[in-house]
């Protein structure tokens, strides 16, 4: 079965928040920066609204409400992980607007986040966006710099998961 059998969707990922897009390798947590969890990018959010990067289906919301898995219509397994080690907040600071099983469109809000509270608790608010079924060693070049959440396209992939230049 091809992961990228859809002939219509371009595998475009939008920024998940307003803020600066950085390479995954710049994330201050080896689990993400090493590519161990998959390839992708990260956003340093300036606003506490988090958007779905793709059209797809919400597969799960972590119990601590900080991580969202979305299966894209194009076959990508996407993990949006809000903040580093924020699992320890036990759900505080996060208000999901979706639940497992929901269909989402790219740009739909998936969560509201209290960035100030997360920072106050001593956690990094950076949001890694991973494609867990694309090898972390894949060299992707996301569009870096300021992006608008739910609007700016950060990555374009061809069918087959290769990057579209």
């Amino acid at each position, binding site marked *: 079965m091809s992961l990228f059998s859809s002939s219509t969707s371009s595998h475009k990922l939008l920024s998940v928040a307003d803020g600066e897009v950085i390479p995954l390798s710049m994330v201050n947590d080896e689990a993400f920066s090493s590519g161990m*969890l998959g390839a992708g990018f990260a956003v340093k959010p300036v606003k506490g609204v988090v958007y779905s990067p793709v059209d797809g289906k919400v597969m799960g919301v*972590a119990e601590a409400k900080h991580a969202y898995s979305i*299966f894209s219509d194009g076959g990508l*397994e996407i*993990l949006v992980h809000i903040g580093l080690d924020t*699992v320890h907040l036990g759900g505080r600071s996060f208000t999901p607007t979706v639940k497992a099983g929901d269909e989402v469109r790219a740009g739909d809000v998936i969560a509201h986040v209290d960035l100030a509270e997360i920072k106050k608790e001593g956690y990094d608010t950076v949001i890694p966006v*991973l494609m867990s079924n694309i090898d972390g060693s894949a060299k992707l070049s996301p569009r870096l710099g300021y992006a608008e959440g739910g609007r700016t396209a950060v990555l374009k992939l061809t069918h087959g998961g290769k990057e579209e230049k």
Partner: protein
Amino acid sequence: MESFVYRVADKVGIHARPAGKIVNAAKEFSADIIIRKKSDGKEADAKRLFSVMSLAASCGEELTFIISGEDEAAAALALKKLCEEALG
């Protein structure tokens, strides 16, 4: 077939980091590796992050690793070691 039981010790459960460790270890082997969660019978493919994370295994949960394939003995040993040493 090999199997072993692991009780989740991390107080926040199997979140992204431990799930990633399991997946990376599992990917080293050709054997099929299934993780079954005792409380609800849910199963995950240990080689897929998505799958392992959606188990939502919390602290104290009993997970059974079921491993079958040519290198099952080595895989069982490696994963058991990982669970006990790296996942706490």
